[in-house]
């Protein structure tokens, strides 16, 4: 079974973000493999362990996104593809999906695994676009995946439980963080990753041109914030204060 996992390098969620003068988020800071995509890699590796095959990591980003791919390779993925091109800076969801689709198509994977949404404020629009461009169905927000021959079955998280969704390979799935605890790379894995292939390609190799961006930022305003109220220490009277507020709000 051929499995492609899309992986994105994102600003470290545990560090502070800086806004540049042109309103783009500063990339000059710690970056990590998206924690959601780490779960995707883990799921891919588990499927490979159960059914055989190959796990290929595909990323679009600046050259240093190789580090994110390398991390996945040290977890056990087989090889990587990095789409890197100055023209892709600030790419929107559609351009990202077009570039990923062009790189993934020649691989003819059985399963493409994406994160449900990326960590740096993006909103999960790349996967459905990618599924459409690859011409495969999308089985989304999976918290469990089972493959049986050419049939794939997922538990799709919903607001009040889940749906069992079935499809036939080839498919694209998106996975939630709850699906699998990502493994740590072993020392052996880290050593092995050094000699694994990461193929780097540009927009020209993919025959894609950058189109018009979907949106233009016209301005930034300060978000409306709620005013802080009072902050009190729990010195024994806190419960009374809460009761008072609840009573004023007429809930008791």
């Amino acid at each position, binding site marked *: 079974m051929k499995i492609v996992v899309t992986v994105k390098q994102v600003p470290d969620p545990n560090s502070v973000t800086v806004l540049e003068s042109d309103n783009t988020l500063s990339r000059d800071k710690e970056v990590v493999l998206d924690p959601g995509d780490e779960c995707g890699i883990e799921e891919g590796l588990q499927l490979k362990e159960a059914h055989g095959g190959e796990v290929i990591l595909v990323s679009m980003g600046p050259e240093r996104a190789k580090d994110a791919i390398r991390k996945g390779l040290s977890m056990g993925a087989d090889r990587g593809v990095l789409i890197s091109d100055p023209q892709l800076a600030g790419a929107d969801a559609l351009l990202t999906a077009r570039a990923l689709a062009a790189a993934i198509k020649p691989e003819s994977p059985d399963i493409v695994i994406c994160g449900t949404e990326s960590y740096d404020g993006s*909103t999960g629009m790349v996967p459905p676009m990618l599924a459409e461009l690859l011409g495969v169905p999308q089985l989304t927000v999976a918290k469990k995946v089972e493959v049986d021959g050419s049939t794939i079955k997922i538990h799709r998280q919903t607001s009040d439980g889940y749906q069992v969704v079935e499809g036939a390979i080839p498919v694209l799935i998106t996975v939630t963080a709850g699906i699998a605890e990502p493994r740590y790379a072993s020392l052996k894995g880290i050593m092995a990753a050094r000699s694994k292939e990461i193929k780097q390609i540009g927009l020209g190799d993919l025959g894609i041109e950058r189109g018009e961006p979907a949106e233009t930022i016209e301005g930034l305003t300060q978000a409306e914030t*709620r005013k802080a109220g009072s*902050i009190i220490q729990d010195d024994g009277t806190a*419960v009374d204060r809460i*009761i008072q507020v609840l009573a004023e709000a007429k809930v008791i």
Partner: protein
Amino acid sequence: MAKIWVYAELHQGKLQPTALELMAKARELGDVEAVALGSGAKAAAATLGKHGAKTVHVNEDKAFDDFIAEPATDALAALHKAQAPDLILFGFTSDSRDVAGRLAARLGVGLISNAGDVVAKNGGFEAKVPYFGGAKVASMRANNKPAIILVRPKSFEASETGGTAEVKELAATIGAESRRAHIVERVTEASEKVKLEDAKVVISGGRGMGGPDNFPLLEALAGALGGAVGASRAVVDAGWVPYAMQVGQTGKSVRPGVYIAVGISGAMQHTVGMKASKIIIAINKDAEAPIMKMADLGVVGDALKIVPALTAAVKAKKG
């Protein structure tokens, strides 16, 4: 007049509240048509008419209920070809995201998601999107026709205007090639006594609750107050509680009379789902936690001690 479409999401025959919220905004932006697909579409059309839809395009094929995204994408793409709307509004929900993304890629246009508001400007549309960790709001001009914008639930208040929509049957052929991601079973897990979205009081727990074994403390408080229990994503991802309880950007949006955040730091992705609450009370052992800066009352202390004491006090007060 600009031609606005509202994608009216249905779940097993039930019109979703986001559809009516979008209607309220769409009416300000131009002539509104709604698209309702799947069982219950005709009944939904009557409601959509009362909320200002001039026309509702319906198709009750069960394929729309049973297969993810592709049948709806086919129908919308076909209708788009005939009608060329200026703007298509979707709710920012899992199901609508699946359809909107696929449709955008098929039409070759981009989209704007996670919007909190939409305004008409210079003959086009601008979406207001949280930016830079939610500290700022970006005004984003949509460059495409159609503009496709996904709006977070509860961003607008639904209201009836009275009216009757013309119901038009949407001709769509759903071929086998679009019946691929098949929903074969639906499982309800949450047996909420009070629905989170409708509760007057919501008590949400985060990582500061220490572990799943402490969540019954919140349930006891919710029981005493007649409220519902919510949670942060950190504890949902950790498997302490089901996703149905998650509040925030990728969970539910709530606006209760009182929201009590217990052991929750107040990350932007959490607060977008609860900051419209009337009164916010935070219990956190860290006085510097971001949630404290937006709470009407912030209590610095140990949740595991305060919550049981509070439950006892509420019960005593109620007698």
